[in-house]
């Protein structure tokens, strides 16, 4: 910490010798919040996870190619992350934030990627605008999605947070804070797009993405609500669905039903947390409507913990439910010329397997966070997941011999730090 302070002081001296730490006018509207020219900070998590299911991988994210279970008995790829950030206060109202993170990517490398790169204009203490790569505020814990040290658990509840698996948005947002007595309300409007690469090849893109999110804070209580729409394209699924168009009008009808094109993804969430210090209670609900082969899913979780000095044990219960039909008759092969039947059968099986694999699961988690020294914590967590009949849950990389609908357990340990 002292090295960091020294670095900041040196930078202050080098970059802006004339800048006073803060002014001491008595006028009333003059005191500036603390904003040194440059602030460097870093965070990270080193983690290892073991899964009892060895015919599939638990990855914790659809953007990771492999994880714990089949590929590794103990995987360090699921939770391990390193982040480095610089914030530059360019003027009293204009600041820039740049953050790089390194974690297991779609291509199985840890090549750093840009998590944030934005300019923020603080018009008044309560009104600000940002442009660039900014947070996508879908959830209560969206702000700390990558920062294990800020979260009570080893990882955010996957049932709920997998509904919107991305954390950032390229575009702009506007934030308005309103103080009503002891109640603080922060309303944020976000617009832009998010693009990512998928481990199975191709990319995914959410265009015309907008979110309205509102956070209410009253003492130790906070409530977050969000509504989001976007046009989602997933290359690998599009290619598959478009193949149905080879089969005349009935194929086109199926393609239109399951194609995401021109149909918005809709997402809504409502979350709340009460954290008076000695204990916490948190819960969140979310629902994603895709009107495509990926269907509609809803999820919720509740979590509570109690702090005994530096130890904070917690318990969670999380549920993920697929609400769309899990099967479709597909192309009627009786109407097809014989040479097209094998292709149609293949497509039908493929469609059914995508529909049937829509994740349905619930997880009970028990764990403890230990703040054993300054700026570093150690967490241990046990999860038991019961998977819905015919579903593979949130597991990926399914191998021959994998049996859908079987429960599995995870044992995880992480060390989180902030600097």
């Amino acid at each position, binding site marked *: *910490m002292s090295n960091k302070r020294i670095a900041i002081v040196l930078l202050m001296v080098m970059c802006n010798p004339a800048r006073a*730490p*803060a*002014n*001491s*006018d*008595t006028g*009333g*509207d*003059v*005191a*500036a*919040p*603390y*904003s*040194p020219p440059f*602030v460097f*900070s870093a*965070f990270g998590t080193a983690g290892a996870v073991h899964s009892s299911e060895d015919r599939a991988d638990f990855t914790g994210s659809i953007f990771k190619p492999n994880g714990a279970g089949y590929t590794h008995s103990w995987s360090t790829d699921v939770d391990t992350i390193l*982040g480095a*950030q610089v*914030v530059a206060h360019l003027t009293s109202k204009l*600041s820039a*934030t740049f*953050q790089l993170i390194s974690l297991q990517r779609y291509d199985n490398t840890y090549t750093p990627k840009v998590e*944030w790169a*934005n300019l*923020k204009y603080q018009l008044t*203490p*309560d009104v600000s605008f940002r442009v660039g790569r900014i*947070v996508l505020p879908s959830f209560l814990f969206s*702000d*700390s999605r*990558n*920062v294990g*040290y*800020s*979260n009570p658990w080893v990882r955010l509840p996957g049932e709920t947070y997998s509904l919107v698996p991305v954390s950032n948005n390229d575009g702009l947002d506007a934030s308005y804070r309103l*103080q009503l007595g*002891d109640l*603080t309300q922060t309303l944020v409007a976000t617009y832009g797009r998010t693009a990512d690469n998928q481990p199975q090849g191709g990319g995914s893109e959410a265009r015309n993405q907008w979110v309205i999110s509102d956070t209410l*804070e009253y*003492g*130790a209580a906070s409530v977050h609500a969000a509504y989001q729409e976007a046009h989602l394209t997933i290359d690998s699924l599009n290619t598959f669905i478009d193949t149905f168009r080879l089969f005349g009008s009935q194929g086109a009808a199926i393609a239109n039903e399951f194609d995401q094109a021109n149909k918005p993804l809709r997402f809504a969430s409502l979350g709340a947390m009460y954290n*008076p*210090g*000695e204990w916490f209670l948190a819960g969140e609900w979310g629902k994603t409507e895709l009107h495509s082969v990926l269907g509609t899913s809803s999820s919720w979780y509740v979590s509570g913990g109690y*702090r005994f000095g*530096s130890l904070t044990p917690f318990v969670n219960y999380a549920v993920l439910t697929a609400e769309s039909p899990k099967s479709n008759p597909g192309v009627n092969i009786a109407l097809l010329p014989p040479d097209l039947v094998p292709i149609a059968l293949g497509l039908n099986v493929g469609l059914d397997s995508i529909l049937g694999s829509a994740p349905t699961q619930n997880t009970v988690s028990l764990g403890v966070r230990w*703040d054993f020294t*300054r*700026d570093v*914590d150690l967490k241990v967590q046990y999860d038991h997941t019961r998977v819905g009949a015919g579903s593979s849950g949130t597991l990926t990389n399914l191998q021959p011999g994998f049996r859908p609908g079987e429960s599995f357990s995870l044992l995880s340990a992480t060390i989180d730090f*902030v600097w």
Partner: protein
Amino acid sequence: MVSARIAMRVVRFRAIAAALALAFVSQTAIADVVAVVSAKSPITTLSNAQLAEIFLGKVGRAPNGMRIVPIDQAEDSTDREKFYAKVAGRSPAQMKSYWAKIIFTGRGQPPQELSSVTDLTKRIAADPNTIGYIEEGQVNDSIRVVR
């Protein structure tokens, strides 16, 4: 004889316990951490909840509408630990995790830190828009206790 000796020991133990309890009580009384503003500031009193909102960066203004800038003591200071336990019920690790969430989305920075209580007192005395916390025993005429 034996019982008399035990009785003596009990008496002595009680006396030591009482002395320790007294020492502990007076120690905590002396070491109580109070929130302070400049003697020139119009603010006279703030609730724990209002202090928590100011020091957690949730508001930039005091209840009377004037701009207010919190100043922290050093991260390892016991005053700081006591202050946040008192106004927000949070441990140092919980405060760190709270600020990490804000820092790592670029939403803001924690209050400026001054490690010297003398510098802190001078700074607050000179700037009516600042607020800090110190041990009650270190309060002087240039600053006012608001909690």
